[in-house]
C-alpha cells in the first residue's frame, strides 16, 4: 500500500513530463514554421511556455493537496480502526 501511495504521483509526474516534452518540441518547430495556409499567425512559443508553467503549477498544487488528503484519510482510517478495537469500559 505504501508503494502505491508513492508510485501514483510519481507516475503521473513522469507522464506529464513525457507529454510536455513530446508536445513542446513539435510545437516549437511548428511555431517556427507557421501553421500552413489556414493559419497565418503561429502560436508564439512564449505563450506555450507560460501556459505550460501555469498548468504545471496547478498540477503540482493539486497533487500536493491530494497527498495531504491521502495522509489525513490514512489517519482517519487508523482512528476508526482504533475506535473499533477499543475494549469496552468495565461497569462501575
Amino acid at each position, binding site marked *: 500500500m505504501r508503494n*502505491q*501511495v508513492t508510485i*501514483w*504521483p510519481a507516475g*503521473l509526474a513522469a507522464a*506529464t513530463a513525457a*507529454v510536455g516534452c513530446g*508536445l513542446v518540441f*513539435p*510545437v516549437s518547430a*511548428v511555431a517556427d514554421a507557421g*501553421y*500552413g495556409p*489556414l*493559419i*497565418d*499567425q*503561429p*502560436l*508564439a512559443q*512564449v*505563450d*506555450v511556455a*507560460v*501556459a*505550460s508553467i*501555469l*498548468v504545471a503549477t*496547478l*498540477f503540482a*498544487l*493539486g*497533487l500536493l*493537496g*491530494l*497527498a495531504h*488528503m*491521502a495522509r*489525513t*484519510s*490514512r489517519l*482517519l*482510517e487508523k482512528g476508526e480502526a482504533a475506535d473499533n478495537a477499543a475494549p469496552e469500559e468495565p461497569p462501575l
Partner: protein
Amino acid sequence: MTIAPPPLANLFALFAFALATTLALELPTAALFGVGKRGLGAVVLANLVTNPLFNLVFVLIVFLLGLNAWTYLASLPVAVVLEIAVVIAEWRLLVWALRTTGGSSMKLLAMSVTMNLVSGLVGTLLVTVFFTPLALVFRFF
C-alpha cells in the same frame, strides 16, 4: 479563410472558463454520490491536476493538426481519448486521496465516469456554441 490562434490571454480565459464550468457541473454530480465535503474537496483537487493539462494538450494537438473544418471534426475523437484518460486518472487520484473514507473503488470509478460524462457532453456543447466558428464548418461544406 484564416483563424487567428488564441493569444496568451485567450488561453488563460479558456483554461479558467473550462475549469470553472467543469467544477460547476462535476461538484453537484459528485454530491449525488454522497461523498461528503472531503470527497468534494478531492474532486476539486483532482480537477486542478487533470483539467488544465487536458485543455493544454487538446489545444496543442488541435493547433498541431492545424485548425480548420476537417481538423475540428477530427479533434472530437482526440477529445474522447483524452477524456477517457482523465476518467482513469481522476478515479485513481480519488482512490489514492480518499482511500476507504470515500467509499469503494468501484463507487469512485462510477462517480468519475458520470462526472466526466456530464462535463464532457455539456462542455462540448458550450464550446461548439460559443467558441467554435460553426460558420467555418458549414462554409466548408
